[in-house]
């Protein structure tokens, strides 16, 4: 549903913007990467002070990093006995981007303002090799049981942005250098630095109702704190997610 919405959103913008670009004759195709993942984009020159960036970025398939010694209780209900298990953390953005590049002067310095629209998820944590008790015992959150499957439990850190379900709309503000579309060059590049507003970050995991219905449920803060001390203080500052990206553009016409 989310994927269809994102694609629909992209198609809607492109069908509106592309005819204008074709009329003016300034459009570039860009490929790039950064802390928001790998992505592709089209850039449209609106006038000498403004360019429109429409793109898609995803962290899909990119490796994360693994903490090898995360301590968890051997039996979920007893704190005394502990077992060390690995925790793999991956960035997990998957979103469309609509940004306006504003050039205050004739230089390549620009301000960026716009939105990232896509999944609320931006971090995925996977605990593996959990003791067998975790396959049967879990947390009941609003009637949904969150537990491990074959020793593996996934949790997500979500940023709702403006909380427009089912697609998270996250405002983006940044600065950068480079013009995606230049009249005098076929190939250009741009480096951008900014931040996404994620809203209040929340941890979610897949829960299963007693009837077998599944749903991503929000893990209450006090529950998280009982597992990982002070985790809220770490996640709270992630409301503003810094991004750094680099794009290479090829002018199509």
């Amino acid at each position, binding site marked *: *549903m989310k994927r269809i*919405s994102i694609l*629909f*959103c992209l198609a*809607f*913008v492109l069908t*509106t*913007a592309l005819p*204008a670009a074709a009329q003016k004759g300034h459009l570039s195709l860009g490929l790039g990467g950064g802390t928001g993942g790998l992505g592709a984009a089209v850039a449209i020159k*609106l*006038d000498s002070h*403004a360019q*429109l960036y429409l793109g898609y970025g995803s962290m899909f398939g990119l490796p994360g990093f693994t903490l090898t010694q995360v301590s968890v209780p051997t*039996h*979920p*209900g*007893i*704190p005394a006995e502990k077992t060390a298990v690995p925790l793999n953390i991956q960035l997990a953005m998957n979103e469309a981007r*609509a940004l306006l590049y504003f050039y205050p002067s004739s230089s390549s310095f620009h301000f960026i303002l*716009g*939105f990232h*629209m896509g999944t609320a998820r931006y971090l995925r944590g996977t605990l593996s090799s959990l003791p067998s*008790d975790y396959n*049967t*015992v*879990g*947390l*009941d959150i609003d009637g949904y*049981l969150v*537990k491990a499957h074959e020793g593996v439990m996934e949790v997500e850190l979500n940023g709702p942005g*403006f909380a*427009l*379900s*089912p*697609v998270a*709309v996250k405002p983006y503000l940044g600065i950068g250098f480079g013009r995606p579309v230049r009249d005098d060059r076929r190939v250009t590049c741009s480096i951008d630095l900014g931040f996404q507003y994620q809203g209040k970050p929340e941890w979610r995991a897949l829960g299963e*109702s*007693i*009837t*077998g*219905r599944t749903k991503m449920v929000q893990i209450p803060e006090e*529950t998280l704190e*009982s*597992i990982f001390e002070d985790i809220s203080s770490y996640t709270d500052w992630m409301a503003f997610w810094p991004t750094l990206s680099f794009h290479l553009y090829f002018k199509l016409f």
Partner: protein
Amino acid sequence: MKKLFLTLALLPLLFSCETIPEDNPDYPDPAYLQYAGRLTLNGVTTKAVYTPGRLVSIELTESGIYAIGRYADELGTIAYTAGAYTVSGHDYRLSGFGTISFNNSQEGFVELTIKPDEGYQQLVWATLKKADSSNKAYRAWNVEKTRVTVKGWRTISADFIGCDFKEIADFLRANGHKAPVDVPDHGIRSISLTGTETMIIAYDDGSADLNEFSLNGNVIKYTWSDNMKGFTFETEKAVISYMDGKCILTINGKIRDSSTSGSVTFMMSPYNP
């Protein structure tokens, strides 16, 4: 340029919210609805007749399950057995017990003939209370799954197929909670909520527990008469709801002989004999 900004501003409106349909399953009427009721044998509630083995009551449920109550001792403790019944005219064949005959056309005093498989035929007077059929919850339910949630250092839950007491007790002990020592080695076969406001919990070994209850909205208040089955809940209140075509019965409370509090949720489907 203005069109582009307008387009961007309107984008969020394109996304609609996902809705989950409310569950309100329409179950077919139970097969024995017209025969359901409770027979209370007259003159058996005084101390003088607390004869072990003496019949006290017969509950006939909407779903073809019966429960017979007999005095278990001279103190007036009643023990129940449950099974399936079939009907032919005025004759009710109670599997594992025998046959009873009476006219169930109206409530009140009825002449009841009891022909046990073993023993003598008796003719007694009984009071018949016919079952109310106004609520779809009034039927027998198969317990397909049980979710147990216990509060402790951390509140944890686990799902069990069916409802096996030993399995649940093992879960409690493995996670640092006390469980009653007299947990029986069997589970729940069915839970009946009858239109006479009797809750019958039938066990795998043929025994049963009967409790009276009242249903107000989706809240069940019951009185627990069990003295032997371990998991007695001190809060005599349960909540009934429906989800994905299943009946969900949640009992919150504290387990007897234990400091453990929590809840037990049964996922149930209409009983199929």
